[in-house]
């Protein structure tokens, strides 16, 4: 077979988790009944781990993966692919000998010499390099070269980006909820956010839905239409779809 590059698009958790929940938060690792694990971010999208190596730069195991119903998973729009955690490893592609370090936001920086590589990742630097499949190279951007070792300290870079949200440029001032069909309802159905977070609801269903809670209320939202509200007080807020009042959900606001 002479086409294309390696395809590794699924991740297999070591053990299948038992409980299925409709409650998760930005930053949760989620999966459906299938093996693929996604990162649920503040923009309401699920981000794909293109392969296991990428996953293990961020997490040591699959212990925190939450299983959600399949129809909830498919309601969430797909985001871009997750890239390597900055500082963790160096990368290259098989058909190019250039070695790169990873900076925040999937930025690749060419390491200019073996001396620098040795300073950054010590004598065993060659073991700290992963091959990125050609087809995932497009998930990265290429930035400036690292011309001296002082420009890039792997430990500092790693400490500076501890979550995928940070890497993607999100912070906890926003969160997002998708509205599915009458079977799925609000996704996630229960979410915990910090006081001062702006929540955006987006209707992913072809039929209209609305958001009605105490102190906040949207118009009827057609497909792909959004409504947002900033939660400035602590408490649990139940809300419903005004068009299909049996669909309810909760937002917990904490300090």
């Amino acid at each position, binding site marked *: 077979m002479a086409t294309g590059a390696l395809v590794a698009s699924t991740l297999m958790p070591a053990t299948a988790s038992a409980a299925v929940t409709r409650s998760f938060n930005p930053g949760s690792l989620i999966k459906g009944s299938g093996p693929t694990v996604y990162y649920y971010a503040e923009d309401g999208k699920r981000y794909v781990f293109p392969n296991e190596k990428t996953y293990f730069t961020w997490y040591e195991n699959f212990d925190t993966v939450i299983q959600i119903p399949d129809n909830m998973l498919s309601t969430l729009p797909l985001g871009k692919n997750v890239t390597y955690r900055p500082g963790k490893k160096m990368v290259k592609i098989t058909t190019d000998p250039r*070695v790169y370090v990873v900076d925040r936001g999937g930025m690749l920086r060419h390491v200019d010499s073996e001396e620098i590589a040795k300073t950054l990742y010590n004598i065993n630097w060659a073991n700290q390099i992963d091959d990125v499949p050609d087809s995932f190279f497009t998930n990265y951007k290429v930035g400036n070269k690292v011309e001296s070792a002082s420009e890039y300290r792997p430990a500092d870079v790693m400490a500076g980006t501890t979550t995928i949200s940070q890497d993607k440029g999100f912070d906890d001032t926003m969160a997002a909820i998708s509205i599915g069909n009458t079977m799925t309802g609000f996704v996630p159905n229960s979410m915990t956010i910090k006081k001062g977070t702006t929540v*955006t609801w987006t209707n992913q269903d072809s039929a*209209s839905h609305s958001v009605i809670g105490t102190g906040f209320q949207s*118009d009827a939202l057609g497909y792909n239409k959004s409504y947002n509200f900033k939660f400035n007080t602590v408490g649990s807020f139940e809300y419903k779809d005004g068009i299909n009042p049996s669909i309810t959900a909760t937002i917990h606001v904490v300090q």
Partner: protein
Amino acid sequence: MKYKYLFVLAAACLFATQAQAATLSPGDLIKASGPAVYYYSQEGKRLVFPNENTYKTWYTDFSTVKTITDAELAAITMGGNVTYKPGVRLVKIVSDSKVYAIAAGGVLRHVATEEIARNLYGADWNTKVDDIPVGFFSNYSIGSSILNSTDYSPSASTAQAVSIDTDRAAKTTPPVCTTCGSEPVTPTTTQETIQIALSASQNTIKINDVITFTASAQYSASIKEIRIYFDNNLVTACQNANVCSGDFAMPSVLDKETYQVKTEVTALDTTKETKTLDLARASTTEPDSEVTISVDREVIEPGQTTGITVQADETVDVKEIIIYVDDVAKKGCNYLGRSCKWSQIFDGPLGTEFNTYGLVTSVSGVTYRTQTKTITLAANSIPYVTIETGKTYILKGESMEAVVSASDEDGIQSIEILDSQKNVLKTCSGAAPCTLSTGPWVTEGMVTLWGRATDVPGSSNEQSIQFEVR
């Protein structure tokens, strides 16, 4: 064999590009000692086929692939992934049931119904659907949905995609690396744009409404400032935040059909981007004749219930009906026929009025609005009246039986049946249904009959029915 990692220097880059320039031309398929095949693009980059399915939409075999040396291949910059050739196949992702057709530049367009899929790709359309691994989904962008078969043509889409290069040109054109000078072939920071989402708490505006505008920005560098304007008036400006939100009161005179909301985002690296959103003035237009609204009882007592029915005629291919009370969507009916019914308790001081109307959306995206009816809270409710005839039409010379029923919390004093000029044809006292055999009808055309009921305190209500004489 132990792999020796090399660091490419400028000289190697120059040498390699000279070597391949002699043998390669844009549009060539290339490979080195490994199995991977690449497309050599106009920009002098190699594009990756993420999988065999993608390759097969463009080529039937591998006979034209040219082999170059590993060093030559390494000197050619990677330029991204090839997407499916438009029109050839349908695609979906494993975790989602949506089926997409492919438009130019790797744009996915959701095929809205099975019928459209059949019209475009034949009865065996479902054998032409490929699963795209989720890891490659980000190579595509989502376009508008295909709502009818004339909206998209597989053969025309395929014909337009002359080559992978012309197909990619349909996307936003990426910058071309024309110089391979003193620097190795490392393009500097890519020409990334700031991704902005701008939204408003309402889609339409009325005078004195207070609307919340929210803008959020995504960019690799930090965001320095987000400004939001409404009709060129500054709503708010937020520094050093990815999300910015502000309230703005609508003016008391709305003399334009649409108003523009604009956001300007400035990043720390001085990149700027703007995004706009148009808000329409809430329509005060005439109701559409295709849709009607009826209220069981337009005058009720506080705490009583009344039903609201919205109906569309046969000319409307109904997708959804939504019933509004005081501009709040109360009930939506999807794909469930031509009518939608909603009942609720209305409470408040005497004299309170509630406005209700229905919006009907057709499959082709047209929105129809009913007239607005008012429900009033009064000390004495009007009776609930229905009039029924067994048939919708009769033949010339036949008679038609009409039955009027009524109910009211205070008891019914009398029920009357009236002709189209409101001449009383029959009066029944008490609450029992009133029945009248009318006719024989000898003139063809539409006939209207009215039913009227009066409760014990003296409030009355009327309903009419139409039937046809053929």
